């Protein structure tokens, strides 16, 4: 415990500052900026997910699904049923994977209506809990 305490009490940046005056100047501005970092609370909403990022991740998940055909060409307009050849049980499996990936819970009623990649992405971006 003591070891970690000593290590954290003299951060690397400080030690390096004393070596050269030029570095000291730039480092002091760095420290000044850092001290104004606003505190974040756990209750604060997390940054919203970027839509492109979500699309990319959803497509990655679909590609990992062994049963989907045409794995190479998945676009936001791809339909689970027609383009990927997934039946209802397969779609359920895929949605479970998407839920796990983004740490969310998709209610059954909404899950019924998700038929394409774009709809799924829209739902995920609208869900505040997704990460």
């Amino acid at each position, binding site marked *: 415990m003591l070891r970690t305490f000593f290590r954290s009490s003299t951060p690397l940046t400080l030690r390096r500052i004393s070596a050269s005056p030029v570095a000291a100047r730039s480092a002091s501005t760095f420290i000044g900026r850092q001290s104004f970092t606003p505190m974040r609370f756990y209750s604060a909403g997390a940054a919203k997910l970027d839509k492109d990022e979500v699309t990319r991740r959803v497509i*990655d*998940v679909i*590609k*990992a*699904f*062994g049963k989907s055909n045409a794995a190479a060409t998945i676009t936001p307009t791809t339909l689970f049923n027609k383009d990927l050849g997934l039946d*209802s*049980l397969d779609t*359920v*499996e895929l*949605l*479970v*994977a*998407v*839920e*796990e*990936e983004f740490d969310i819970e998709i209610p*059954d*009623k909404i*899950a*019924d209506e998700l038929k394409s990649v774009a709809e799924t992405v829209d739902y995920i971006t609208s869900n505040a809990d997704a990460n």
Partner: protein
Amino acid sequence: MQLQRETLGLYKQLVKTLVHNERKTRLARAIKENKKQIGLLTYRKSQIVRRQQALNEGITDPGLIQEMNNLNRQVDHLKSIDPAKDKKLLFLVDSTPLRIMWEDNLLKSPKNAKELARRLEHIKDIIDFTKNQSQYQNLMALYNLGTGITQEEKVKRTANKVGLDVPF
């Protein structure tokens, strides 16, 4: 329609609990496998070094160098893989038996609505059991901290407790 949604919802819960259950062991296995492959490649590298040393001084075999580079690349690739990020972990390894059970045994030819309801109830019990079982295992691991680690790690931690380091 209502019934279909309900059964699909049940199927979803079943798949989800099974994926959850499998995940931990599969991840551990993937990490182990990755380590093993790296170990194997390192061994092959050391063999090449030995072969190079066996040659007369000043002579280098271009084939050996190429092979070495190849192995290095493979090791780098293996080290860059994070098994936890593998999206395959989000799916069941093989859902075919589950599907067969679902389509052929569960939903086909129930004599009446009561029979079907009884079968669905049974599935709910299975889901609950699987969930509870994994919860139980998690708690067991939490309360008995020493069970999941190797002997080597145990010795290391014991030494750390009194401020020592074990040179492994």
